[in-house]
């Protein structure tokens, strides 16, 4: 779950990590006082380059600039909220993040001397990467002061690293990125911007998590608005493999859909609804390998969808595994044939 900047900074403050002074602005609120930097609160990156961050020095401009930013769509997302922050007197911008290294299963601190929006252009080998534990914050703070060439900030960096570790672990974060980490001319160390991703699997132990969520659904992804073949599968791997097979057969997949392990009949019918919104789809491949998913539930959903949508595209259905013989029986009653596997579906779709 990706947080908005103001949500992430709220968490940073709880762990005593310094952020610029700021307030939330939403349509209808009293206008914040200039000089100020107005920042669009969207989940996507590239916000600065798209014009979503504007420094306003003149109070008379606050009204129309905030209106413009609230109207500005960035990569398909319109903000509900603006963050209005003090204008920092920046001496230098650094990069600092905490993440999880998958292969070593360790928490890592990643840093670069040059932060800001161009940080992605740096070669991966240029970054300082060190394992971060509950015991080495002091040592790492010192390393960081040396690396950034900020000897006067050694204590502040030690404290920052210790707080980042606590924040990262206590918040069940997967990514915590401070970019830029700003040093101001009066030598304050401040988190200029913050991206934070939290682990949704840990939400059961965080009743305090109440965030503005983006509409993005990881389980249904539009691949091509003009695609001709829609896909429904279970499991991310099988769903990706289904899309790959459609592409390989020379056809254009419209979507990726993983109905997951706990798919309900209603949930699957709702997926058909989404697929009906693609104008050029003329075939739907349903590729289910039931481990936890019950094939007869999927069959019931298919029959319900056939009832509900009169212009349902041609279906190519493959149901294997858990309760597939019950599913076959259900579909046979409605003269709906099943294919033994994905290659058979595709062969029929391409040559049939």
């Amino acid at each position, binding site marked *: 779950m990706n947080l908005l900047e103001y949500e992430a900074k709220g968490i940073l403050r709880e762990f005593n990590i310094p952020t610029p002074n700021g307030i939330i602005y939403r349509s209808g609120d009293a206008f914040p006082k200039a000089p100020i930097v107005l920042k669009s609160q969207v989940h996507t990156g590239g916000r600065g380059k798209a014009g979503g961050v504007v420094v306003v020095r003149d109070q008379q401009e606050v009204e129309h600039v905030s209106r413009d930013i609230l109207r500005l769509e960035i990569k398909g997302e319109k903000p509900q909220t603006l963050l209005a922050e003090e204008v920092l007197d920046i001496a230098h911008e650094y990069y600092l993040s905490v993440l999880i290294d998958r292969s070593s299963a*360790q928490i890592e601190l990643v840093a670069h001397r040059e932060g800001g929006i161009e940080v992605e252009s740096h070669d991966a080998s240029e970054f300082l990467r060190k394992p971060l534990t509950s015991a080495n914050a002091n040592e790492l703070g010192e390393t960081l002061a040396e690396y950034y060439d900020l000897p006067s900030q050694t204590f502040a960096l030690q404290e920052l690293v210790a707080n980042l570790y606590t924040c990262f672990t206590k918040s069940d974060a997967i990514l915590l990125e401070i970019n830029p980490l700003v040093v101001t001319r009066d030598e304050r160390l401040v988190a200029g911007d913050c991206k934070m991703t939290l682990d949704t699997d840990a939400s059961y132990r965080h009743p305090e998590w109440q965030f503005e969520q983006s509409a993005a659904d990881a389980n249904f992804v539009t691949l091509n608005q003009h695609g001709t073949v829609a896909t429904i599968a279970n499991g*991310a791997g099988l769903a990706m493999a289904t899309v790959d097979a459609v592409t390989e057969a020379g056809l254009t997949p419209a979507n990726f859909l993983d109905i997951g392990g706990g798919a309900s009949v209603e949930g699957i019918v709702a997926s058909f609804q989404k697929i009906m919104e693609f104008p050029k789809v003329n075939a739907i491949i349903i590729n289910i390998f039931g481990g936890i998913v019950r094939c007869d539930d999927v069959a019931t959903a298919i029959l319900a969808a056939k009832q509900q949508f009169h212009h349902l595209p041609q279906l190519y259905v493959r149901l294997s595994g858990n309760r597939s013989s019950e599913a076959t029986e259900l579909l046979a009653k409605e003269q709906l044939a099943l294919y033994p596997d994905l290659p058979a579906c595709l062969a029929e779709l391409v040559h049939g």
Partner: protein
Amino acid sequence: MDKSIFTGKNVIIQGITGKNGQFHTRNMLAYGTHIVAGTSPGKGGTAVEDIPVYNTIADIQKDHSIDASVIFVPAPHARGAIFEAIEAKIPLIVCITEHIPVHDMIAVRARLKGSKSSLIGPNCPGVLTPGNQLLGIIPAALSTPGDIAVVSRSGTLTYEAMDLLTKAGYGQKYIIGIGGDMVRGSGFIDCLALFESDPEVKRIVMIGEIGGTDEIAAADYICRSITKPVYAYIAGHSAPVGVQMGHAGAILGTNNLESAASKTAYLKKAGITTADSITELVKRVQ
């Protein structure tokens, strides 16, 4: 992982009284897996399918030696369940549970270091040694014994590969689903080493995904240490950059190394036979 841990006899089920635990205990028993006991705190003294239920693993160990454990305990208690199995020095732990918080898995990995246990999973379909035993939820009826070893990050894609291989007349010695989570127990390299050490394995099928760089490390390892032919497929060729597709493991970042195309190219350069779809992969094995 030593191949002897996959031939151990006595299996226990942690979380045997839950819905999933009961259902899959029945399937495993039907396949011939030798389940001696199960755990469910507070339900000691009861039974599931005539299998005695104990409160703790320590209680079971008073009556039985344990070679492997299959865990179905719900996510909030899964870390504790894995810790318990590690403390009990069970050689093979297979954790089926999905949605375990990643920070819990970091703690588990730290605990595994220097322990006597190997962990497969979590969020995985488990391990099947066709004709021998099923440890997990793999639809074993679709497999047949043979000399191919399959390792995969994705559950359902593992079944797909197994089904297509069986239909093409190629039996399997191992089917291992290592799970799709960011942080997990055994990885590709552990499984590849196992396959190399087992003379009954003649060919290896490896199924990866977008996201992470495990397949890249596996390719380097194959170059150095694997003499048997490897056939690989990376799912997600049609995935757009910067989009998360399904579960936690498969996030394609802006890092080009993690895309299906670049992983496939890397594997190819390492001399591995690759395919752009699962169907093509099975054709390549033929």
